[in-house]
């Protein structure tokens, strides 16, 4: 277990009275792609947002149980530090509309007021955009606004923005659900490349996507973690009947 990056044990989350995540225990290993799937309202996005403490920003949201990044309890760390270490990409591409492509990539540094050499920033921009497979498309228009890009490019820009901070883990909240199939394919290809350096946790509605991109899959149902196993195992021989029903499309 020494390669476990994120581990939750008996983790619960609420919105007011609504018990959205129930007693979830899971260990996520380094440099893997983990897909989190389940029907709408099963708590998968809430669980994801608990990992980098975005959940608590919603009024009335509470949590109980332990969530660890390596050996440190995420809920005893400064949330700002947690979010440096655990990046996030959202459902809809959300580049900062007031910033250029360049500034969007280094937004984590600039908005935090970290003073950096221009040369270092240039390097970060090129490296991050290259990792996000966007460098070739935007290298001549780095100083245009990020919102001029297409949806898929914007989403890769958001990925570059998360990579630029060199986090341990990147959380993806249904990252392709607002994208067309071609953009989706390019983002999915990225996941394979990114996992050499990062640990990726991807929430998805789309079972085919989970099967295509992930090493391991977690199936959430009604706030519980029903099953967590190798993706191949899960999709060929699920242990739980609820997983089987979901995969075979008996409910969704």
């Amino acid at each position, binding site marked *: 277990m020494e390669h476990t990056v994120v581990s939750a044990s008996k983790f619960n989350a609420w919105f007011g009275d609504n018990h959205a995540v129930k007693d979830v225990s899971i260990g996520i290993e380094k440099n893997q792609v983990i897909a989190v799937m389940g029907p709408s309202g099963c708590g998968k996005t809430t669980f994801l947002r608990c990992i*980098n403490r*975005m959940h608590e*920003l919603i*009024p009335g949201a509470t949590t109980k149980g332990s969530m660890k990044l390596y050996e440190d309890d995420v809920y005893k760390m400064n*949330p*700002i*530090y*947690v*979010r*440096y270490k655990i*990046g*996030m990409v*959202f459902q*809809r591409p*959300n*580049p*900062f*509309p*007031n910033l250029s492509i360049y500034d969007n990539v280094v*937004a*984590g540094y*600039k*908005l*935090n*007021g970290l003073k950096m050499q221009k040369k270092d920033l240039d390097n970060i921009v090129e490296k991050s955009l290259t990792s996000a497979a966007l460098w070739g498309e935007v290298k001549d228009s780095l100083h245009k*606004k990020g*919102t001029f890009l297409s949806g898929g490019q914007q989403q890769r820009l*958001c990925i570059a*923005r*998360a990579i630029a*901070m060199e986090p341990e883990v990147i959380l993806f909240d249904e990252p392709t659900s607002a994208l067309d199939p071609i953009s989706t394919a390019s983002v999915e290809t990225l996941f394979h490349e990114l996992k050499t350096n990062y640990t990726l946790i991807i929430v998805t509605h789309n079972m085919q996507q989970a099967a295509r991109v992930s090493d391991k899959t977690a199936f959430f149902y009604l706030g519980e973690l029903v099953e967590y196993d190798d993706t191949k195992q899960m999709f060929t021989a699920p242990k739980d009947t609820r997983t089987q029903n979901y995969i075979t499309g008996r409910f969704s």
Partner: protein
Amino acid sequence: MDARIGVRNTKSIIFKSVIIFLAFVITIPLIIVLLYIIKQGITQVNWHFLTNIPAPVGETGGGISNALLGSFIIVVMASIVAIPVGILAGIYLSENARTRLAYYAGLCVDVLQGVPSIVVGIVVYFWVVKPLGTFSAISGSIALAIMMLPIVIRSTEQTLLLLPSSLKEAALSLGVPYHRVILKVIVPCGFAGILSGIMLSVARIIGETAPLLFTAFGNPYLSTALTKPMETLPHLIFTYATSPYDDWHNLAWGASFILLMFVLLLNIFTKLITRKWNIQL
């Protein structure tokens, strides 16, 4: 069936004609007022008019430099207070829309917006002018700042409420502390809206007369002393237009023209700025 469709179409056409006609009609009073003031005022305006103080009765010439300077000083001082306070309060209201404090603060803003300007003037008169024992430019600024506040607060709040929450989440997920999220992301993205609110509030208070009657009062001479009475454009128009002398009436027309042009330009600028700086989300 065909006949009924015909009737319906006719009704639609009549309805459309009525709203187009009314939209046209409402512009007529504005155009008439504009033309009349331009006709009466434009002949008065020249360099001499802008750079001299009003002439005593019986002498020809004279200008409105004292009122121009006075209005400028009083509005700038009011803005210095009202703009930062208004923006910060607007940020609070949009960020904490559901709290009890926001509810009551919002209510107060609405009430403040509805308070007649003359009442604001009287209150400032009793709070500032009476204790100090003199009419003063500064009391005029206080009255105008109070008039400005609700406009700046509401426009900031409305602008920021329209920004998607995903923007804030994007910044927070990068580990940006809350105050920087607001100052570096939220406010810049809503900048055009906030700025247009500010400019409209300036356009609104520059023509306020009632609160200045008992505060800045007026002064026939050029003055920059903040604790002394100071002339302003609307007050000059009021005093000179109600005087019995033709020369003074002309002065008031000229001043009206200047004031009108200023407000008009401010409104046009606001439109241009919001169009140019509006951020595509």
